[in-house]
């Protein structure tokens, strides 16, 4: 019998199932079930002590129509989009540079990119608080260079949140883009130049499409956590810089209303998941058409 590619054969090798069983169990126990629980709890109500009561309700769904939410959702959305765009925009040149230099230099740069993770995330965020503080070093330098007015606050606004978001998630953009750029065949750029393209055109028309899988991964790696970020706006953002994450935390810890927090979290998950699922299904259909529609 001719061996088909595994994804289209429709048959499973028992060994494959055995090998993937641990990760499947892990995902079901620690991801799928908790997610379903969150969606279920969202339709419960909380009692005065913060416990989850036994009866079902749609109150939490109605509570989504809070008049403060649209502004917060919008802010969360544009901060996440801008963070993603800046991280990808910064990640591409770094990844390109890393992929072109000799292997020794790459490893060094890789270490430099990963080293900040050795410092606790919270400490790094607090460090930013010090940098942006009116008496902080960054502020002083910028004032000295006449780039900001002395009275202009750098901290406690959405721009501070954006800066720290970009700082935090840039490595998560660089790494997948680098992984794609490292596999990119740079002789394609020579081929493009050979065919009359200027180097910038070759980069745009050949390099960028060549690493697009890395760019998509980077976008997901940055956008999804940015949407759910809570600590960063909490620490460097002011009263007007709340994101959805802050609201979820507020419902859970301050209001002691876990079901309402679950409803918010569930709504956030769905807004991320649905477009992703639609994208994935459209990809699969295209791929299927490609493989079945055109005989070689």
């Amino acid at each position, binding site marked *: 019998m001719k061996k088909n590619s595994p994804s289209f054969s429709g048959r499973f090798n028992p060994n494959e199932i055995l090998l993937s069983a641990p990760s499947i169990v892990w995902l079901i126990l620690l991801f799928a079930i908790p997610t379903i629980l969150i969606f279920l709890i969202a339709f419960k109500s909380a009692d005065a002590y913060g416990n989850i009561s036994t009866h079902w309700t749609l109150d939490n769904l109605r509570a989504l129509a809070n008049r403060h939410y649209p502004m917060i959702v919008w802010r969360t959305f544009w901060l996440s989009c801008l963070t993603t765009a800046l991280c990808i925009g910064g990640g591409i040149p770094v990844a390109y540079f890393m992929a072109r230099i000799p292997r020794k230099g790459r490893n060094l740069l890789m270490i430099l990119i990963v080293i900040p993770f050795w410092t606790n995330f919270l400490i790094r965020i607090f460090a930013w608080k010090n940098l942006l503080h009116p008496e902080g070093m960054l502020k002083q330098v910028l004032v000295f260079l006449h780039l900001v007015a002395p009275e202009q606050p750098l901290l406690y606004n959405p721009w501070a949140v954006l800066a720290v978001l970009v700082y935090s998630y840039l490595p998560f953009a660089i790494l997948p883009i680098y992984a794609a750029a490292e596999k990119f065949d740079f*002789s394609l750029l020579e*081929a*493009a130049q*050979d*065919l009359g*393209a*200027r180097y910038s055109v070759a980069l745009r028309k050949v390099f960028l499409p060549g690493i697009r899988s890395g760019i998509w991964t980077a976008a997901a790696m940055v956008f999804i956590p940015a949407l759910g970020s809570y600590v960063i706006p909490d620490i460097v953002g002011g009263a007007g810089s709340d994101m959805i994450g802050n609201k979820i935390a507020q419902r859970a810890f301050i209001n002691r209303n876990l079901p309402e927090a679950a409803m918010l979290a569930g709504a956030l998950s769905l807004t991320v998941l649905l477009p992703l699922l639609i994208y994935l299904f459209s990809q699969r259909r295209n791929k299927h058409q490609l493989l079945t529609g055109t005989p070689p």
Partner: protein
Amino acid sequence: MHDYLVFDHLTKRYGALKAVDDVSLSIEQGSIFSLLGPSGCGKTTLLRMIAGFEKPDSGRILLNGRDITQLPPNQRQVNTIFQNYALFPHLSVCENIAFGLKVTGHRKADIERETLRMLELVQLERHADSKVTELSGGQKQRTAIARALIKKPNILLLDEPLAALDLKLRQRMLMELDLLHDEIGITFLYVTHDQSEAMSLSDKIAVMNEGHIEQVGTPSQIYEAPCSSFVAAFIGDTNFFDGAVIEVKDSEYCTVRIGGFGDVLCYNDKKLRVGNPVHLSIRPEKFAISRNLPEQRKGRNVLSVTVDDIVYLGTHTKYWVLLNDYRVEINQQHMRYQLDQIPIKHNEQVWLYWNADDGYMLERYCEDDEEMVFQPPEEIGDNPEPTEQHNEEE
């Protein structure tokens, strides 16, 4: 035909290594010119300098009289077929072909017309919308050719374009390339390490070694009259013998004593004198062996040897025969096949014979050629020793 592409004392160094060492060449318009050499001989570096991916440390490249040494790759009327084809994986076949016109801002209608014409030329109409990753090796290669030709290059550079193909496909593509060249008539500069590709395709071949050019000539010149033992050994197989002239017979022939092998008659085109050392190359197909003593002819050398190894190859048989320390390779064409014929066997004593004209004297003496060529041979008939070896052996 005038010199179309000229390399003028090109040198390229990588650190201490001279990848290309003072190379001067000129290539005629419309010809197929091959750069042939082992890997690392500098042929690809030379090609990349023409394409504009490398800048020479010194020297100039002239294309149709214009100095293009400093032009960036995208401004040269030169296109390359890369060894791995370097097709853009995110584009379809026809998008790949159209790429060169799109990036230079041609009109849409022109691009479409030219792309169709190219698809037709390389017979890929049916695959116009295929992904390049789904193509076979030969189809990829044809796509690469179309993508380069759509730019109407003055020179098409081919960097080992057939190396990735299997033998049968390689032979077919070789014929297709040849036909294509006849059809479009632009200059091909073909880089390869495969001597049979170079021989079958080229009008002229430059054999390169360690950054410099060993010899430039037509395929037959290079095969029949190699100017160095490197060329002789690299182009085809050959047997080398070292000896010295012991007798100059007349204006054409001399006898060379090869220690441990015998005294052989040799065509003396280098006008060597008695006592001159000789480095002799004799191609395997110039030898013949037989069980019966071959008849005496003027200029024929005959030696008794022992068969060491036999490989039957259908078109011919390869023999290796031993004579003292010498192991000689022979390609023998088959005579008319007869069922009752007893084939030559391992360890059999046979007669090895070849024509004195078929030995070729090599380089060592090329160097002092000029000094020797005009000197009349002095000792004609001085040495009356018999030179027909089989007499001694009987």
